[in-house]
């Protein structure tokens, strides 16, 4: 398959903006906290009053990506931009609120994973091909793979892959999982802008074996589930961005790898 090229990447984590903000050791930097929250980005306007936090974070990630590209919103608006979204648990907070509040107050459509890319599509006027993948790092890698198929089929001129994970509202529920992983849960939102490239892309998957930890990323970043591959990508380009690129990740016994060869992931801008 023809590989997409990276035009821009926006990464926001509870550590700060971009891979450059990551600590050397997440566990030490967390100072005993099991969950590190990003809070709620501030966007003005009545429309945002009822928009859940995970949706606003998705919008902020795309704005960070646009800043990285030094591009305006008009450059991605319209029918020729695909939007692919990935998340493992980004919907859990809204679902919990809806379940526990009874019939009062909660706004049901926002409880589905579809709400995050929907709000992003509305905000930026994205009207092209569309997909939502659920799971950890493999979901993001599958979304990147599908973006490549859409680009290769010329169903779009550019594809945005977005991932958002939040934990604060369900910190008590996630506590057991956090202890099991040995890493703090770190909220994150990331977006990449992909365009048709020259190299080749291969998707590999297999079951069994330990969950991969590419470059010891979780020691630096903490646990970010679907956002992990985007952080790895940001670190890779910050490190010189030469040669081939391999993004990998595991979730629930499945390991997925995306391997770029040839003119791989050309970097046109960097926030790192």
């Amino acid at each position, binding site marked *: *398959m023809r590989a997409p090229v990276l035009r821009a990447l926006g990464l926001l984590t509870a550590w700060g903006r971009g891979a450059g903000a990551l600590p050397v050791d997440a566990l030490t930097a967390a100072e005993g906290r099991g969950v590190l929250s990003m809070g709620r980005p501030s966007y003005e306007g009545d429309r945002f009053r009822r928009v859940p936090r995970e949706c606003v974070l998705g919008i902020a990630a795309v704005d960070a990506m646009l800043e990285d590209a030094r591009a305006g919103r008009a450059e991605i608006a319209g*029918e020729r931009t695909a*939007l692919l979204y990935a998340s*493992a*648990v980004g*919907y*859990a907070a809204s*679902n*919990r609120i*809806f*379940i*526990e509040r009874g*019939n009062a107050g*909660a706004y*049901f*459509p*926002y*409880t*589905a*994973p*579809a*709400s995050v*890319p*929907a*709000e992003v*599509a*509305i905000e*930026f*006027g*994205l*009207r*092209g*091909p*569309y*997909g*939502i*993948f*659920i*799971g950890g790092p*493999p*979901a993001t890698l*599958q979304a990147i*793979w*599908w973006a490549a*198929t859409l680009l290769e*089929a010329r*169903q779009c001129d550019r594809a945005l892959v977005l991932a958002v994970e939040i934990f604060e509202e369900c910190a008590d*529920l996630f506590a*057991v999982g956090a202890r099991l992983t040995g890493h703090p849960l770190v909220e994150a939102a990331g977006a990449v802008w992909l365009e048709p490239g020259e190299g080749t892309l291969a*998707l590999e*998957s*297999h*079951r069994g074996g330990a969950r991969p930890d590419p470059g010891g990323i979780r020691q630096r970043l903490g646990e970010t589930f679907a956002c992990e591959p985007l952080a790895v990508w940001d670190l890779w380009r910050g490190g010189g961005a030469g040669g081939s690129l391999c993004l990998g990740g595991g979730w*629930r*016994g*499945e390991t*997925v790898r995306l391997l770029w060869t040839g003119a791989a992931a050309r970097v046109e801008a960097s926030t790192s």
Partner: protein
Amino acid sequence: MRRSERIAIVAAGVVTPIGRGVDAFWSSLVTGTSGISPIERFPVSDLRVRRGGEIKKIPRIKDWGRVPECRATRLLCSAADELCSEAGSRPLPGNPDRVAVVLGTALGGVEEGEKALAGKRLQRLRGALYDSPTQNLARWLGARGPAITVSTACASGATAIGVGADLLRQGRADAVVAGGYDILCRFVMRGFDALRSLTREEIRPFDRRRSGLLLGEAAALVLLRRETDAGTRRLGSLLGHGSASDGWHIAAPEPDGRGLERSIRTAMEEAGIEPRDVDFVSAHGTATPLNDRIETAVLKRVLGPRALAIPVNSIKPALGHTMGAAAVLEGIMCLLASRHGQIPPTLNLEEPDPDCDLDYVPGGARAARPTISLSTSLGFGGCNATLVLEGGTG
């Protein structure tokens, strides 16, 4: 000119409110059987609407004890049992590392989350993740290839089939079990009830008295293979798939249906077909005032005069809106219409809306043998997806 390799749909398996198994599903559709009934499985007395397409008893399969308690998983395994029988065996023939599972759902295992939070049985929370039923089904099938969950709201089933087809086209799998599911639970009933999307009357797509939808539950699976690997017996083929975002509103379709139009045009272009090639349309047809008018207008825009000459139906009055399963059930219905030479009717359509002026097959089943069909889907958040299907030889 066709832009994509066609993908064979080799077998199917379904569990629905109008019967378990493809044959029972089909005979109920053509005889106009309704699966709508009072909901009995969970409390609904506080809700405005208390009916839906509830499956009263999930048919047990041979190793039922090994299937997790999760209702969504049980529906899926029951549907997969039929699919495997049709395909010849479980595990499915071939290298298990090359068998993928791609499922669409609007709700995933959310009922497990409801139960966990209500009873504080937090160990069940893992089952509440939206990809849990996919992982459970992959395990039950012995499939060790990619296990992918997509969740484009009520277009999820169509997205799953599209992603599954691309896995085959890209050589990432040799067989794909693709499909969709969702169950009725308090979570979704409360949500739609609060939105006032549910009707207290009959579901009446394209009727001037239509007042909304009712929900249903189902699981529907198809086995996809590359044409060269599929043999001669098959339900049919997937010729094309298209998706598009409205970028308009979180819970309402774009009033001109431009997103739906783009998804149809993309799917037709991928399939390499023209309006004159389309014999039948399975509409999303939810019976909400806006949806049915928009779909009608879009079909006329895309198909031109052909839209007025071909049958268009909605099977949601029989099943309720089965969310993640809807597009898959509707796609299977298109292929069965080709096989049996009949188009199931749109139930409860008695007083046509002047704004909805296509041939919606009111009354009873229609004798017709469509070759190429379109199946359209729309979902919350502005998700639109279209499948182009061709009837088979099996």
